[in-house]
């Protein structure tokens, strides 16, 4: 009965990234703590490397210095000739690609966990980039089950134009971890505890897999990105309406056509158009004002994964 298994190579090299955005403090301080004392992230036979990805932004407690590090891991930027004139984050991306990649090569790290925070009320969120990745679907299923009753959502960013060139995409299996709500430049104990648990369960999953445990077929519910929605703006491009109080903090909850979305500064309500129910995420995220994103619309999908087992056993 081994034919229905996806037999995969054992996992050897894992990295945990913090500070890809320098003002998202949970990952910054978990990684700094693990650099001092990494006992809790070690697993037998597995290399686990904690790493601060954007040290200059961390030092300034700002998202980035010249440009968003989490958008420059495309082959064009990674292939640019190294020069002092390149934006700091592009130079840094090439260093990271050198240390943990090269991207799309045999030598790259197996898994990179990239730790982020959001000001949105998204709770524990795992970000998936590929809907056909049985290994990660199995891992996310394990993390969700282990965290229950604490909810853990899966955000799928597989989209021809909306998928972006993430820092973690250097690895064979990229995993985004996003926990909120937490203001930029603030470290909350409750959020720290949740992120720490997500990493613990993820590493336990890898350990079990490497030990030869078989994971039977499973399904998970995911939220697939449809489109980004900008704030209404006036003629000069300034924001003319804000997230409606009934939408604020309602990430992952169904938003029906006609439901309030924005409130203008004159007090008028702007409802959701169209004719389908959507699930909003990243509602009122601080870092997305400059990206012209008030929230993103998603639809719910169910993903299936085949049984997996490490090929060594």
């Amino acid at each position, binding site marked *: 009965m081994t034919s229905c298994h996806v037999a995969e190579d054992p996992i050897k090299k894992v990295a945990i990234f913090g500070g890809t955005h320098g003002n998202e403090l949970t990952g910054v*301080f*978990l990684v*700094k*703590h693990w650099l*001092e*004392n990494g006992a809790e992230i070690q697993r037998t036979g597995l290399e686990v490397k904690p790493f601060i990805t954007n040290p200059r932004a961390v030092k300034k*407690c*700002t998202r980035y210095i010249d440009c968003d590090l989490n958008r420059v891991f495309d082959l064009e930027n990674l292939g640019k000739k190294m020069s002092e004139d390149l934006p700091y984050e592009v130079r840094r991306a090439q260093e990271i690609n050198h240390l943990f990649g090269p991207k799309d090569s045999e030598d790259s790290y197996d898994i990179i966990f990239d730790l982020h925070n959001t*000001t949105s009320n998204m709770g524990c969120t795992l970000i998936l980039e590929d809907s056909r990745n049985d290994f990660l679907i199995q891992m996310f299923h394990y993390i969700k089950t282990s965290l229950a009753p604490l909810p853990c959502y899966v955000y799928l960013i597989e989209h021809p134009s909306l998928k972006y060139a993430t820092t973690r995409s250097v690895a064979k299996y990229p995993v985004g971890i996003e926990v909120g*709500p*937490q*203001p*930029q*430049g*603030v*470290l*909350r*104990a*409750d959020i*720290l*505890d949740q992120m720490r648990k997500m990493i613990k369960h993820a590493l336990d999953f890898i350990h079990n897999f490497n030990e030869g445990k078989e994971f039977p077929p499973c399904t998970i519910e995911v939220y697939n990105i449809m489109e980004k929605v900008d704030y209404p703006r006036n003629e000069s491009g*300034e*924001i003319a309406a*804000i*997230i*409606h*109080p009934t939408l*604020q903090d309602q990430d992952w909850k169904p938003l029906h056509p006609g439901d309030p979305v924005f*409130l203008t*500064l004159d007090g008028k309500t702007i409802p959701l158009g169209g004719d389908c129910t959507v699930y909003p995420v990243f509602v*009122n*995220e*601080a*870092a997305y*004002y*400059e990206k012209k994103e008030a929230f993103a619309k998603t639809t719910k999908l169910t993903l299936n994964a085949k049984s997996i087992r490490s090929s060594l056993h």
Partner: protein
Amino acid sequence: MCSWPVPREPLRRVAVTGGTHGNEMSGIYLVRHWLRAPGEPQRPSFSATPVLANPAATAACRCYVGRDLNRTFTSAFLTATAHPGDPYEVTRAQELNRLVGPKDSGRAFAFILDLHNTTANMAACLFVDNAHDAFALHLCRHLQLQSPELPCRVFLSQVPGKESFHLDSIAKNGMTLELGPQPQGVLRADLFTRMRALVAAALDFIELFNQGTALPAFEMEAYRSLSFVDFPRTEAGDLAGTVHPQLQDRDFEPLRPGAPIFQMFSGEDVLYEGESTVHPVFINEAAYYEKGIAFFQTEKLTFSVPALPALAPTTTRGP
């Protein structure tokens, strides 16, 4: 230490300032809205001037560009000779002093209301100089009575013997409004609506006073800072722990000796070792990490505020 006593004539020149810190969005959006729609801050006896206090920091969505503007309104900064290398905020403080000051002069604005946000769970908090600041305290009382179901606490911010360095100190009377919790760079509708209502009520109070309304004496409860507490740190100066979950979001609630205040990354708790109960505020405020402040310890006090006499109908100058 209050250099300007209770006003004896109507307040005609009133400023409402937002964006003193460029990532505290409620005041920024309120002021910007008023700059486009100037009818809202008008009252029969005066018209409040909206001022975007730190436009460069607001454009960058940062607290400040060169140094904290709201620590720059001392006479030393305001009267210093300009140098090409001055931080932006020193230059801007001098501009604001020309616009709504000059500080300690008869030509200064009658009142400044300066609008701020905090990431701490402080709800609305009004910062006035001291317990002798009768006009501002009557204004606080008015705001508290407008929506008694919503918390609106008063904080006495003057440090005895120290010159005030806040923006509102350049007017004859003033007050700072803090509203939270709101992340930096985020505009929440609930807090925006609350701030707008508080500012409208403050302008209504000034109008009431200008119309010759007398206000009775009352007992006021307020908080006063005793000291501040830094985060636990590693030898390298990095954070070694966080605000304890049992203290997080509990601004103004009593903190008793022996209660946990920090949780170390290694797992153990740090307890409050003071001898008396205090009331912590600005718990886990983002802007205070760089100042080495995890929270302030305050004491709660009660005092009497005397009646505010009505302006004489044809007031020119007091006797």
